[in-house]
C-alpha cells in the first residue's frame, strides 16, 4: 500500500520550471521518470521574486506577518487535497479592510491557486488545494488602500496536480455541479467577532490538465471552476477566481458578517461555460 509513499518519501515532481513551460514540464514528468534527485529542488532558484512581479505587476509587497496568515500542514497527507486556511487580521485601530487575498503555490504548474475578493467581515477562508512539489505557499492580502502584504509557509507534498483524478469517474460525471451550502452555528473565531461561518461545496472534477485519460491515455484537458460568487441578499460576500490548483469538488469555508438578508445565492462558472446556481435561506444563529 505504498501508492502514496510519494507524500512521505521525499520525492518531488519535476514541475518546478518557469510556469511558462508548464505543459512541456508536465509531459516530461510522465515521460522521464527518475532523473530528479531531491537535492535538485533545493538548488533551484526561488521563483517568488519573478512570480510575484508577474502576478502583481511589480507592485511593492510588504511583510505580511501579523496581517495575513496561512495555515497548512507542513507535510501534506494527500497532495491532491491539502487543507489551507487563510486568516487576515487588520490590527486594532487600523481602519483599512481586506479587499482580496491571492493564494500562490509557488512550485505548482499554475502557481496562482485562487484570488478571493472578500465582502463584509470575511477574514477567514479555508479551501483545499493540490500541491505538486515541495514548495513555498504565499498568501497576499490587498487592503482597501491598495497596499499588498505577503506571507509564506513551506509545504512538503508532491504529485498533487498530476495525481489521478476521481476515484469514481462515473459518479463524478453524474454529479457535476451539484452544490451544498452549510451554515455553522458558531464561528471558529469566537462569538465576539459577530461573524458567522458558511461553506460552499460544489461537485466538479476540477481537472488539472495534467491527469491522463483512462482509455485514450491522453491528458484530460483542464476543466475547472474558474469563478465562484456567493451573495448574501444582494451583497457579494465572497468571489473566487480559481485555477487548477483547487482540489476536486471545490470546497470553500469562510466567515462573514450577517447583513440581515434572508437568502444566500451562489453562482459558479466552469471553463466549459457551464453555469451552476444555488440558493439557500439564511439559517437563524444558534
Amino acid at each position, binding site marked *: *500500500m505504498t501508492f502514496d509513499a510519494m507524500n512521505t518519501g521525499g520525492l518531488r515532481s519535476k514541475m518546478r520550471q518557469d510556469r511558462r513551460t508548464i505543459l512541456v514540464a508536465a509531459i516530461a514528468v510522465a515521460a522521464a*521518470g527518475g532523473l530528479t534527485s531531491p537535492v535538485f529542488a533545493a538548488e533551484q532558484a526561488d521563483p517568488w521574486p519573478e512570480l510575484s512581479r508577474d502576478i502583481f505587476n511589480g507592485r511593492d509587497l510588504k511583510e505580511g506577518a501579523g496581517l495575513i496568515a496561512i495555515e497548512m500542514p507542513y507535510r501534506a497527507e494527500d497532495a491532491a487535497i491539502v487543507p489551507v486556511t487563510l486568516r487576515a487580521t487588520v490590527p486594532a485601530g487600523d481602519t483599512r479592510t481586506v479587499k482580496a487575498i491571492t493564494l500562490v503555490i509557488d512550485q505548482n504548474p499554475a502557481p496562482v491557486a485562487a484570488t478571493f475578493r472578500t465582502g463584509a467581515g470575511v477574514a477567514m477562508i479555508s479551501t483545499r488545494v493540490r500541491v505538486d512539489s515541495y514548495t513555498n505557499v504565499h498568501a497576499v492580502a490587498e487592503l482597501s488602500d491598495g497596499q499588498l502584504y505577503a506571507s509564506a509557509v513551506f509545504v512538503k507534498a508532491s504529485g498533487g496536480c498530476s495525481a489521478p483524478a476521481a476515484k*469514481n469517474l462515473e459518479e463524478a460525471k453524474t454529479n457535476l455541479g451539484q452544490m451544498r451550502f452549510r451554515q455553522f*452555528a458558531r464561528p471558529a473565531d469566537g462569538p465576539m467577532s459577530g461573524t458567522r461561518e458558511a461553506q460552499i*461545496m460544489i461537485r466538479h472534477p476540477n481537472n488539472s490538465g495534467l491527469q491522463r485519460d483512462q482509455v485514450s491515455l491522453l491528458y484530460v484537458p483542464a476543466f475547472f471552476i474558474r469563478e465562484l460568487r456567493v451573495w448574501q441578499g444582494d451583497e457579494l460576500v465572497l468571489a473566487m477566481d480559481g485555477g487548477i490548483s483547487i482540489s476536486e469538488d471545490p470546497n470553500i469555508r469562510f466567515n462573514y458578517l450577517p447583513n440581515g438578508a434572508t437568502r444566500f445565492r451562489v453562482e459558479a462558472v466552469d471553463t466549459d461555460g457551464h453555469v451552476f446556481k444555488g440558493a439557500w435561506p439564511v439559517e437563524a444563529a444558534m
Partner: protein
Amino acid sequence: MSWFAVAIPLLFGLISLAHAQAAESALEITEIAEGVFVHFGVNALMTTENEGGIANVGFVVGDAAVAVIDTGGSVREGRRLLAAVRTVTAKPIRYVINTHAHPDHAFGNAAFARNGAVFVGHRNLPRALSTRGPFYLSAFRRIMGNLLDDAELVAPQRQIEGEEQLDLGNRILRLRAWPVAHTDNDLTVLDEVTQTLFTGDLVFLRHIPVVDGSLRGWLTVLGPLAHVPARRVIPGHGPAAPWPVALDDERRYLDRLAADCRALIARGTPLAVAATTAGVSEKSRWELFAEYNARNATAAFAELEWE
C-alpha cells in the same frame, strides 16, 4: 565459424546466466495449505532496500498448472517469486492474477510477462493501470531508482466481471470482482480445495487499512465478503488468519473512521482538524498508523461530507 560467432552468444549466455542467478534467489515461501504457497511482505513503505517487497504474494499449484497471485513491488521481487515457484514445481504458470493495480502488488508483473501466462484482473484494472500506472511508475522510480527500470504495466488479457473460475487441473480457483472498496478494481481468489482466500488489500491485518476507493463502498463490501466460504485468508498485508474473524479488526477501524468523520462533519469541524483526530483511538492497534491514518481520514471526510 569464427571465434567471434561462438564467443558472442557464449558471452551473452554467461551474462544472462549471471544475471539470472544474481536476480533469482528464491523468495522465502510458506506452504500455508496443500499446494498453496505464500511469501509474506514486510509491513513497511516500499524502498530500494526491501525491493518493494511489502505485500503478500503467492501461488497455487494444480495438477496441470500454476496460478500466481500478485507479483510484488519490483520486477526483482517478481523474478524471485518465479524462482520460488520453480523450487516447488516445473509446471507451467498458466495465470498471473493481479488483485488490484497498486504498485506493491503489480510492479513485479514484467517477470512473468513473456512466459505465456495469461494475466487476469478486475474489469476495471486496465483503466486503473492506464490512469494511475504512469504516475505510480514515475513516482516510485524517484524513490526506488534503478530497481524499477524494467518495471512495466501489464494489462490483464482476461478481465473478470462478477464471479468466474480458473482451472489449474483438478483445482478450481474462484475469482470475484468487487464493487469499489479498497480501490475500484479489487479482485479476490478462492482456492476451492483448501478453502484459502486471497483477498488482496480488501483485507489488512496489523498493517493499517488504506482507503483509496471508497470508505462507504468498503464497509458495504465487508458484508458479502464475510460470507465467502473460506477457512483462512491471505490478506494483502499481514499474516494468514482464520476466516471470517480476520475481518474484525479492519471492520472496527473502518467503522471508527466513518463514525468519527460523520460526527466531526455534523459538528462543523474543518477538514484540517478532522485529519488529525478521526480514527486516532485506533493508533495503538496498527502498524504504519502515522503513515496512513491522516490520509485515510482526509479521504473519508471528503467522501462523507457529501452524504
